[in-house]
């Protein structure tokens, strides 16, 4: 199992386009991927579910924990990390 804690810098947080990109990226991997909002201290939810990711209420500057488990766990974690760190492809 791999795990990482990352701060979301995007101005809308995990909502709208960033949320969609996050879920689409997660869906590319066969690993089980879970995510939780550390700042709001909630539960882990399925990172491949757009509805559940929205229920995390991740806003700008919130920290999220991502856990991946499976054959491509490391690749999945890397992809999601670089998506958030690269501010979802926006400058």
């Amino acid at each position: 199992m791999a795990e990482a804690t990352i701060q979301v810098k995007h101005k809308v947080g995990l909502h709208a386009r960033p949320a969609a990109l996050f879920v689409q990226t997660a869906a590319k991997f066969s690993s089980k991927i879970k995510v939780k909002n550390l700042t709001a201290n909630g539960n882990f939810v399925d990172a491949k579910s757009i509805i559940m990711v929205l229920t995390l209420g991740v806003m700008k500057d919130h920290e999220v924990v991502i856990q991946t488990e499976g054959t491509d766990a490391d690749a999945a974690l890397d992809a999601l990390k670089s998506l958030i760190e690269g501010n979802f492809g926006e400058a």
Partner: protein
Amino acid sequence: MPETNFKGIPASDGIAIGSIFCYIPTKLEIPVCVAGSVDEEMARFAAARERARVELQGLYDAIEKRVGKKEASIFEAHQEMLFDPALEEKIREFVEIGQTAEQALVMATEELARLLAGMDDELFAARALDVKDVGRRVLRILLGFPDTALSAVTEPSIIIAEDLTPSDTASLDPALTLGFITAQGGLTSHSAILARTLGLPAIVGMGDGLLDNISSGTFIVMDGRTGEMILEPDQETIARYKQIKTQRDSLLQILKAAAEKDALTANGRRVEVAANVGEASSARDALEHGAEGIGLLRTEFLYLEDTQPPSEEKQYRIYREIFEVMGTRPVVVRTLDIGGDKPPSYMPFPDEMNPFLGWRAIRISLDEPELFKTQLRAILRAAAGYQARIMFPMVSDLDELRRARDIVETVKRDLALASVEFAADVPVGIMVETPAAAVLVDVLAEASDFFSLGTNDLTQYTMAVDRGNAKVSGLFQPLHPAVLRLIQQTIEAGHTKGKWVGMCGELAGMTKAIPILLGFGLDEFSMNPRAIPEAKNLIGKLTDERAREIAGQAMSFGTSAEIENYMKGILAAL
């Protein structure tokens, strides 16, 4: 039957005259029947989901073609929700305890929508409606109903409904839609936003029972600017609204065309028309109205909304967001402009006989250097890569200006030493709002990169009148010859020193003043965003030569009343 009037919330400008189409969505009742096996029910769900996907893709393509990618993206989001693994898992749970696909779908979407609806942030909570909309679509397909009754609209109609979902409005043919009226909803509801995008009139929030007393085919008049709806109008009313509609349509077209272009005088000189903005959210509004920049960004709201001064980070974020919205367009940030008339709770203010002549604006900033430095650091950092300018309010003396600039330099040195990214070349200027500053522009030019006239305070200080005092407020005359002379002198002295001179007071957006100010050679007009289209239109009708003639003539009068009267004639003849 006599006319009947109703009033709701005006949501999108325009007048529509025509028959109504009452949209009552098909009631989706689930028949009571025994569920099949888990596999059978899940297969029925999967088949309905696939048909829903095809419908949503069709809606996406149609809206993208008709309106745009941004407006269509809602149906992309709906497709993602449709295939959400959490939705499928929930449905399976309910099917496994013996529910039909229909019942399971309703229970699952309701449960997920409830999770979203209960969130604190409105933006997130609003997504609950999307989950419900998706659920309803799949349910309708499972029950075998065709896609939405709105496709039954066959002639141009005004659509009246309880509320409209994105799916409802997407199946509307804009060519057959004259306007929208809904019983529910607010200004930010989906139908209100779509109506504005399509340029259709809309009224929302008419209240419960809207659909009880009317039926399809009733003839009505609706005014999206006032929120009025008139049922069965008489001939006179129809004629009156037809006339208003024709006038407004042609005026709107002219103004819209003017707002989209950069402001040019009739002889082709470029003049900047900018917006006055008092909070972060209005920057977008300003752009929509054709602002070429922000000529006055008030920062007081940051200081008055909380029980402690705003942190550097908070200010940085808010300034940065506004700069990002405005892109390469200039933004003039006015530093803290508060006083004893409206003191923040965390600052002890002395009892003052006259707070407008007291401890306020730049005077506070110079006495409270830490408060001032925090703001300057936030502005300078946020300005990196953008066209920001810093402006000090209520300067009346060169020494004040020099001291304020010294603090700016100190802040820049500190930032450079700490290797923090900031904009080193931000122009620094002053507001001209005291008569002292107006007569000293040539002297102040030594330390000011630009000047911006604040006409409300300049009028108040020049006429020595408190406009809040009804006994004397009649003397508050921004077109008074004394005020106009100071404005003219300021512009001329600024230009002699090679500085640009703008105006961010109310006068800059008044049509009766614009020709005079143009004649004086004002470089930038900054105003309430809503005044921009009309101001640009007016500037485009005047040559510089004509404006100079008008200004010269106006300055030959001895009273404000004579000037106003003269300008009324000028505007009527344009």
